[in-house]
């Protein structure tokens, strides 16, 4: 067959390999047909949407990840609320109803080890599944990553971090330290740069500020413009002894270990003692437990090292003496 040109000028040919990739995306439901055709033809009609459809099954899986976290009932409730809102707004958009853009910048109050970063990571993935964030990754930064040492250095450093976080969540741990240095501190510059980026990249970035409650309240009071930009505020309470034991059991189970009843009792009294004793720094909650577990696992290894051929059961078992003398923080 010889195709004849009907006298009409042909335009740039379609790139078959690029088209195959686009069609694949379409078939998997990541883009809609308008978008697929626009990408193949290279014509953007301006109405094509780039937001992928929501996969409710994935969202449920992520909610299950959230439910798996020990305690945090209030946090779980707020997160579900946010997601119901985001989900319904997306459905409204699909039905061409008014859907006000939701401001999703947040503040997490809580002591170390209360699950702030873990929840932030789950949130980032969930926003990605809802089509709000293109990548859904989490960039975790602190003062040193944002604040520079000379004039102009701070803006550059902050912008770099923001660029890295575009399409995901920028998680600023101990955010109050940005305002700590007083009027002439470069931390202020980082805050201004951040606020500007939140405006410029409204649809590409979600910022989460995290820190101890008292310090964060002070931080917000130093900059009156800040609280209104972070409408979602979530409080992460300290864990009780029961919850900490549960966390220890989970960590052990995930690494294929378990503890004897005596070991559990020993751990419980160790935790009670740790919670009672006066300290300068706040109690590090789940992180404290994680360190305890790490140490217990090392002690168990040392204990078994001297045995000729330890049984499978012995290899899994953490005994009371493995916790003993532990001073992990």
């Amino acid at each position: 067959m010889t195709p004849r040109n009907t006298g009409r000028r042909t335009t740039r040919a379609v790139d078959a390999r690029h088209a195959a990739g686009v069609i694949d995306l379409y078939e998997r439901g990541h883009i809609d047909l308008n978008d697929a055709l626009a990408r193949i033809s290279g014509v953007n009609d301006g109405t094509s949407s780039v937001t992928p459809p929501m996969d409710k099954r994935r969202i449920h899986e992520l909610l299950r990840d959230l439910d798996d976290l020990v305690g945090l009932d209030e946090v779980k409730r707020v997160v579900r609320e946010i997601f119901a809102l985001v989900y319904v707004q997306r459905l409204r958009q699909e039905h061409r109803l008014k859907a006000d853009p939701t401001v999703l910048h947040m503040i997490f109050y809580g002591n170390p080890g209360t699950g702030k970063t873990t929840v932030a990571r789950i949130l980032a993935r969930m926003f990605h599944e809802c089509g709000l964030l293109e990548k859904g990754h989490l960039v975790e930064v602190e003062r040193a990553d944002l604040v520079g040492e000379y004039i102009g250095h701070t803006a550059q450093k902050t912008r770099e971090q923001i660029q890295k976080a575009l399409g995901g969540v920028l998680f600023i741990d101990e955010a109050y330290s940005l305002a700590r240095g007083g009027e002439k501190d470069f931390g202020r510059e980082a805050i201004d740069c951040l606020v500007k980026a939140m405006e410029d990249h409204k649809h590409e970035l979600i910022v989460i500020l995290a820190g101890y409650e008292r310090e964060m309240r002070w931080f917000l009071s130093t900059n009156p413009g800040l609280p209104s930009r972070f409408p979602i505020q979530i409080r992460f309470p300290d864990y009780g002894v029961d919850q900490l034991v549960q966390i220890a059991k989970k960590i052990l189970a995930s690494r294929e270990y378990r503890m004897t009843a005596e070991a559990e009792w020993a751990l419980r009294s160790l935790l009670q003692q740790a919670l009672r004793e006066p300290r300068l720094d706040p109690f590090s909650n789940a992180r404290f437990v994680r360190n305890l577990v790490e140490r217990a696992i090392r002690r168990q290894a040392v204990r078994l090292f001297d045995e000729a051929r330890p049984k499978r059961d012995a290899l899994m078992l953490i005994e009371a003496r493995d916790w003993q003398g532990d001073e992990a923080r």
Partner: protein
Amino acid sequence: MSDVVVVGRANAGKTSACLRLARALGIEELVWMVERTDGGRERRRLPIREAERWLTSGDPHSTRSLQTLTIPVARGKVSRAVDIVDSAGLADGHVRDEVVRRAMGQTLRALVAAKAVLHVVDAADIGRSMERREAPFHALDEQLVAIGRTKAFYLVLANKIDLPFAERGVEWLRGRLRDARIIPTSAKTGVGFDEVKRYVWKLA
């Protein structure tokens, strides 16, 4: 690679146009190959009257696989065959039915691979949209035009010319797509298919 792919939005009348073209080419018995979305292939043979009854429907998304009609075309002393691919109709928005989505993906693949494109447009629908002062041309059609133009052979069938407001739709199409060849057709009455036939002959 297929010779001609017939594309258009869902319910534009692509399958009817294919069958009408086969009829215009004097074919009584249709031989067509069905490529299902699961990769399976079937060869079917049916008298054209039966085919009309079985293959066409008033509901969108009735074609859910690629149907390749092999049409023998007499050219001088030798007879050659042209493969005409009838594709699944395209509909925008989020298609939740995975089978329909795969069928549309198959259409896109055939569209990218084909040398020639017959783009079936519902002219009556365009006319009606103009009556209602709505946007006459759909974004999907706009993009099909852009892809069609990259091909060596591109023909627009302004279909359903037998329906009210269709004339107005054809006028509008002619103004809008100045450098494309537009043939007003009616797959129902057969109007315009002699001209389409002449173009398909050129491909043989």
